């Protein structure tokens, strides 16, 4: 059985966790710590020495997502174990504290096929799955490296992951080839991260008749635009939208006699994002340029961190509640367009940006995109996932954008070079000058 510790006060963990972990391991279970509440930071060196020893013991037994860095004080990062000033009660000093133990849903080890998985969501999800003891095979054409080391991943961790994860080479658009490659392969679960059209599902289902679960990465883009928001999973889809292929895939899965689950993210962000969401803002902030925002800037949208999304994908695995269900997965709060610009500035330590509002109808930008997000309100309720999957986003918006900045753009890496053509058209029309650092 795999035992996971959830959301506990790290200060308590230093007293309680080490003997617990030991007990659990003695009973033959694997243990891992999946999430830790962020809280105020205390320098490790200021911890009482018995806590330092306990913390070291936790680190030794720690086998989870988040790292414990004992020597980096007072930083806002979810990948650090934060330490709350310890308020040790008499009971704790006497060792009289008792804890009940949380045992996560025991999911036995699965043989998992992931369609895609080398670029963004899959990068984090594959790690969660291998750490949880599953066997993961990525199905890709092999054009991109199967694995890449994360910015905050040690060489040892990366080595462990890259040697655990398997690769099956092929082109999923070659339906016959796909079917023959998968026949008899014995995969228990499929994570379809890069599927676009309903027809793509058939060869996989035909090749894997005993499939336990088909988990599909859909999109909130399937929702029909509405004056009443947020979108709930029961809202109407738009059969004419750009994402109708995703909607088709969901219907296709529902028609087949397969245990399926569909996840609908909104805008995903985080380190390694290949869609220029936060990157678009960071480029302009770094260049000291004003940020053009269409309309009033009051349009409300929703960003969700890729790591929170990966955890949601993990939570539906082997979960009876998730059978034939759709879940919106994104951030806890929504945000205005103006608000995203300000949040990105905070995340990257930039000064408050100048926002320039423009009327998109007055321009013909050609192929250049003037703004990375759809010009409308676009947000969903995540209450179904929170209620049924016992999942909730760990990252607030500024925290999450900071994570993305620190581990990606802030290190000088990005996917798309900046294109300020549309920006310059707007600024010229509005008679604004740009003083840009060379």
């Amino acid at each position, binding site marked *: 059985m795999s035992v996971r510790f*959830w*959301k*506990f*006060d790290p*200060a*308590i963990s230093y007293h*309680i966790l080490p003997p*617990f972990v030991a*007990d659990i391991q003695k*009973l033959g279970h694997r243990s891992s710590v999946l999430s830790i*509440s962020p*809280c*105020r930071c205390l320098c490790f060196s200021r911890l009482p020495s018995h806590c330092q020893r306990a913390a070291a013991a936790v680190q030794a037994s720690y086998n989870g997502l988040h790292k414990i860095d004992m020597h980096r004080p007072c930083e806002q990062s979810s990948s650090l174990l934060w330490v*709350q000033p310890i*308020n*040790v*009660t008499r*009971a*704790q000093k006497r060792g*009289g*504290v*008792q*804890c*009940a*133990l*949380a*045992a*996560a*849903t*025991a999911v036995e080890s699965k043989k998992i096929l992931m369609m895609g998985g080398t670029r963004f969501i899959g990068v984090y999800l594959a790690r969660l799955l291998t750490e949880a003891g599953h066997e993961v095979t990525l199905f890709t054409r092999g054009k991109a490296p199967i694995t890449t080391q994360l910015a905050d991943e040690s060489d040892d961790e990366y080595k462990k992951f890259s040697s655990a994860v398997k690769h099956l080479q092929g082109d999923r658009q070659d339906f016959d080839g796909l079917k023959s490659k998968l026949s008899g392969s014995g995969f228990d679960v499929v994570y379809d991260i890069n599927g676009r059209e309903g027809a793509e599902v058939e060869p996989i289902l035909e090749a894997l008749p005993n499939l336990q679960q088909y988990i599909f990465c859909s999109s909130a883009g399937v929702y029909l635009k509405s*004056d*009443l*928001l*947020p979108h709930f999973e029961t809202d109407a889809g738009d059969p004419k939208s750009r994402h109708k292929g995703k909607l088709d895939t969901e219907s296709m899965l529902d028609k087949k006699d397969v245990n399926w689950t569909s996840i609908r993210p909104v805008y995903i962000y985080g380190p390694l994002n290949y869609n220029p969401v936060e990157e678009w803002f960071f480029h302009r902030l770094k260049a000291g340029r004003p940020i053009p925002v269409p*309309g*009033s800037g*009051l*349009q*409300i949208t929703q960003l969700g961190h890729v790591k929170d999304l990966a955890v949601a994908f993990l939570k539906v695995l082997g979960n*009876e*509640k998730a059978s034939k269900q759709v879940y919106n997965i994104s951030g*806890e*709060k*929504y*945000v*205005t367009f*103006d*608000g995203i610009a*300000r*949040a990105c500035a905070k995340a990257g330590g930039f000064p408050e940006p100048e926002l320039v509002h423009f009327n998109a109808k007055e321009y013909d930008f050609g192929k250049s995109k003037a703004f990375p997000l759809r010009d409308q*309100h676009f947000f969903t*309720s995540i*209450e179904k996932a*929170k*209620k*049924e999957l*016992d999942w*909730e986003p760990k990252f607030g*918006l500024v925290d999450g954008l900071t994570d993305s900045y620190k581990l990606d753009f802030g290190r000088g890496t990005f996917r798309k070079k900046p294109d300020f053509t549309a920006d310059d058209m707007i600024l010229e029309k509005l008679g604004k000058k740009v003083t840009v650092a060379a």
Partner: protein
Amino acid sequence: MAMQATVAIADHHASPTYAGLSSSSFGSASQLRLSSASSSCIASSSSLFQGDALYSSSRGGALLLISGSKRRTQLGAYRPAAFFPSVRASSSASTPKKVLIINTNSGGHAVIGFWLVKELQSRGHEVTILTVGDESSDKMKKTPFSRFSELREAGAKTVWGDPSNVGAAVGSASFDVVLDNNGKDLDAVKPVIDWAKGNGAQQFLFASSAGIYKTSDEPPHVEGDAVKADAGHVGVEQYIASLSFSSWASFRPQYMVGSGNNKDCEEWFFDRIVRDRPVPIPYPGVQVTNISHVKDLSSMITLAIENPAAANGTTFNAVSDRGVTFNGLVKFCAAAAGKEPKIVYYDPKAAGVDAKKAFPFRNMHFYAEPRAAKEKLGWKSCTNLPEDLKERFEEYTAIGRDKKDIKFELDDKILASLETA
């Protein structure tokens, strides 16, 4: 900072008290207040592995409560959590309660009392509604007060009086629940709170306002978000919390539609649409607000009254679960009236009008979500704005308001400013 822990539910077959519990009873972790180490709500770890009722569950989850040092909640007195802090709200009326509502004599909140009395009476509770002021006052000629005979027909008592002297109005009567749906600051509500405490009321409820939330780049307003420091309602909430009623809760409403409303809401739009006038909307019209049918508030407060343990210590956003844009609201009102909407956008400053007088809603995103009620009470919203507005329009015409002679001075000023612009 409040402690956080996840709480999974034990196999409810083993504990009949909690029959009917579902995953909807999981409170959000941040709502839990953890007890101190000495509380009885901690189970030993070994018992979990012995197949204890605590351990097994249909979902394989088990109970975790981590003890920790006491924390003062933001609102004052610390309360140890119950073992299963989130009790599923039952849908049928529990023990009948004696409820006293102190009701405002004007404004948007007046209609809440009107609907709540009816709902509570229909569910077997005994309600007295104390309206502030005199029964003979001119204010009583407007709805809902002009329809208070309906409340008496439903079995409720209607009295009038002064909140600073509740005893004079209700005599020696005692109540299980007191709801103040009148005051906006401690000066107005303290006498009611103190009287309720002295009177032995177990539960105190307060109709606050979602208007006290600080504006933010990140909608919606969620329970727990920062509130304006100078808001009078905050002081009231803190005072109630400090007095250790068995149960207390605060409700933060926004705008409401519903029969018997004292303050115009949808009527403002119907007035213009039915007379084929353009509807002036402050630019850009995408501002999101929350328009609830008042029955949502009535059902939420009723659930809190019938499930005091689940509601205790909570502020609830008393709103529907959908936001609507100004543009969308005009569209729905026009559809209800069977007309095509005509919108003109304006900037209140440029038009030289006071935005508060020119338009019935705040000129900004003002959008709260009822997350606490859903999580803690299993409450569901019944507002369906497009349908509700149809019913509202029927009443609008039935009372002849569509024929009424109305002056549109501010509208005309706005339209004139747009022509000369």
